[in-house]
């Protein structure tokens, strides 16, 4: 199980981290910066984490996934700092004997991370900055 908060994400490395002799399936999700939000051009995103708690929550989520599904390896890695369009900001993945488990676990990892992990994202537009989801 790998759980990390980093400055830069290299998505290519995650495959080697999830590889395992009894894993026939590896599922990986990468979240990246999109150019447009509601038709407004995003210049960059800036991520801030409550790092000690975020790592604890990420560990809990990885642990929950390994309870729910038979997984051989799990990775949850989130970036902090300023990220530009197309840059990866999060990578989660799981490997398992068969593909059902790794697909379902991978989806659980990213959905639950977005619900619970204390990390905040500010969208930087040309003329304003917005903390995402802060207001109804």
């Amino acid at each position, binding site marked *: 199980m790998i759980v990390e908060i980093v400055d830069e994400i290299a998505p290519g490395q995650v495959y080697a981290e999830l590889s395992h002799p009894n894993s026939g399936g590896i599922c990986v999700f990468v979240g990246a910066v999109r150019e447009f939000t509601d038709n407004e051009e995003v210049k960059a995103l800036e*991520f801030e984490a*409550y790092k000690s*708690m975020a790592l604890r929550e990420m560990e809990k989520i990885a642990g929950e996934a390994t309870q729910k599904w038979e997984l051989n390896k799990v990775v949850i890695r989130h970036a902090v700092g300023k990220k530009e369009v197309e840059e990866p900001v*999060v990578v989660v993945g799981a490997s398992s004997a068969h593909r059902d488990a790794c697909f379902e676990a991978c989806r659980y990892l*990213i959905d639950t991370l977005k619900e619970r992990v204390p*990390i*905040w994202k500010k969208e930087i537009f040309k003329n304003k900055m917005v903390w995402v*989801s*802060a*207001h109804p």
Partner: protein
Amino acid sequence: MEVLLFGIAKDIVGTSSFRFEGGDVVPQSVLELKERLSETFPEFDNLSSLAVAVNSEYADDSKGLNLGDEIAIIPPVSGG
């Protein structure tokens, strides 16, 4: 008692942390802390939600607070 502020909470209060010391009127529970924040900074009432963590764990409104705790004000998270 150290209170950490993140995301929009940091912008509302204008600092990333503050302290309650022994001589201060220290909030006794999560609920009291939230009420105190809302009174001083009404903008907190406009947020979609507001959570509090005590020693890096999400805490209910009823959770009691101690002077040695590390508190975090957690506006809606938006990682990923």
